[in-house]
């Protein structure tokens, strides 16, 4: 069994199983917890909980005007990175094939060259994000090992994917195998680190929104 066979075979099987296991474990464990009841009477302006969840999720997509100046870089860079990742993951033909093999659904792909360009921008964005984290005193204080591991396992698939395209450092099949293995690493780490925010950010923002709105506070 060569490296590519290992990556496409046992490595993908095990890592996908760990990913699904971990995500469902954490999500169910979270959602089935008893909900904290707020016994106080809601303010007259308090909307339904669902509306509060939506409002909070939308509102938190851009910082409050007070914090715009201080956080504009991380917001813009965050958007570049996340949108870039979404384009690369969801609109590159080989990735669509991978998703189709799992779920049976498919959609049109972007031209490969466009995805390559977006991938390169995403890579720079990830590096810029790390540099910002390393140079910001506040971020340094609140950063944990988890943050750096999550950053690394996100960077590696992007970097190895680009290397596979330009075929630098090794033969294509080796780079492709490394790319798939880096995705396996991403899948394995995802449920147990901060990457889980891809699922939990909606819940945490929603919970904040419900509490704030219940008390009549602005988001």
């Amino acid at each position, binding site marked *: 069994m*060569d490296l*590519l*066979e290992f990556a*496409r*075979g046992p490595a*993908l*099987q*095990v890592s*996908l*199983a*760990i990913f*699904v*296991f*971990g*995500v*469902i*474990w*954490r*999500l*169910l*464990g*979270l*959602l*089935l*917890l*008893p909900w904290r009841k707020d016994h106080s009477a809601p303010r007259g302006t308090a909307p339904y909980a669902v509306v509060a969840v939506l409002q909070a999720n939308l509102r938190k997509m851009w910082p409050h005007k007070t914090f715009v100046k201080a956080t504009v870089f991380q917001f813009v860079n965050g958007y570049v990175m996340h949108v870039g990742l979404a384009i690369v993951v969801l609109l590159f*033909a*080989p*990735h669509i*094939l*991978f998703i*189709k*093999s*799992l779920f049976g659904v498919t959609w*049109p*792909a*972007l*031209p*490969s*060259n466009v995805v390559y360009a977006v991938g390169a921008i995403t890579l720079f964005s990830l590096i810029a994000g790390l540099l910002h984290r390393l140079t910001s005193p506040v971020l340094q204080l609140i950063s944990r090992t988890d943050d750096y591991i999550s950053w690394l396992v996100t960077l590696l698939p992007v970097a190895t994917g680009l290397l596979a395209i330009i075929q630098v450092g090794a033969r*294509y*099949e080796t780079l*492709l195998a490394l790319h*798939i293995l880096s995705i396996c690493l991403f899948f394995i780490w995802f449920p147990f680190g901060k990457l889980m925010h891809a699922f939990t950010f909606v819940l945490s923002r929603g919970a904040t929104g419900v509490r704030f709105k219940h008390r009549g506070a602005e988001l």
Partner: protein
Amino acid sequence: MAETRTLGELLVERGVSRRAFLKYSSYLATLMALPPSAAEAMAEGLAKARRQAVIWLSFQECTGCTESLTRAFSPTLEDLIFNFISLDYHHTLMAVSGEAAENARLQSMAENKGKYIVMVDGSVPMKDGGVYSTIAGRTNLETLRETAKDAFAVISVGTCAAFGGLPHADPNPTGAVAIQDIVKDKPVINIPGCPPIPDAMTGTVAHILSFGKLPELDDLKRPKAFFGETIHDRCYRRPFYQRGLFAKSFDDEGARKGWCLYEVGCKGPITYNACATLKWNGGVSFPIQSGHGCLGCSEPDFWDKGGFYRPLPTPLASVREHVTEAAAAGAVLGGAAAWLARSSQNAYKSETKKSEEA
């Protein structure tokens, strides 16, 4: 048998002009990506060389490699390269000669000790004492060891000889192995393919004849001149890949328009061979040009890589079963964790209530 005349003398006898010979040498040098100056050196080398004794052994194979070579007939000098070779023994072609053929092999080995080339197509069965393939009452292993012992080099022709090929495919009932797994003390060149491109075979032999040494090989012992780039690198459909235009099936609009076959399982991106440049049948076509994706036949274990029509970026086997089991386990653990948390909270509440009542 032992030949005293040089190839140059032989060619003159056969009426081949120097101009035609130089043209052919240039073609060979270009084929092998050698610098322009090498063409003349190649011509000089070939002209001074003596007929190369070659012993061709056929083991567990389908004869496709021999078919490929013998049908590589060309009105040019290409076929003449095998007039340069003294094919002293060929299992398949000389099968009806019986004992006489075996004697010819032994005689050639004795007369050309240390100089002859052994070309092998087919893998060698190792299981149960190698009984699954025998010739003249001897196992392939015995014949190979005996013949390769005094050879200058061994050329494994075809994927079966180079990497085990189809006989080596899971579950490998005969315990088939590649030639390089057995011959350890001689230079081995692999010219894989199912079958290999005739020009790759003739070009490699011509290189040895011209320069008296082996051509540059890759990590799988394949001549870099023919196996240095992937099919994908040189595929005429590559621009469609770049533009994201793919055939989704073999009879859709994309297939009719000649779009990239990546999504229907083409293995071109991981297959090192010269099909896209040299092509087949005198440069007429190659599988992708004929509308079918590359099978990856010049790569080890190409039969066991998840299926010819499974696209490259997908898992080798279905992951659905494992993922379903993992999801069920995750649900049980998540539910149990929440239940424990609730129980703990309820216990805390009842304790608090009791202490308040007390």
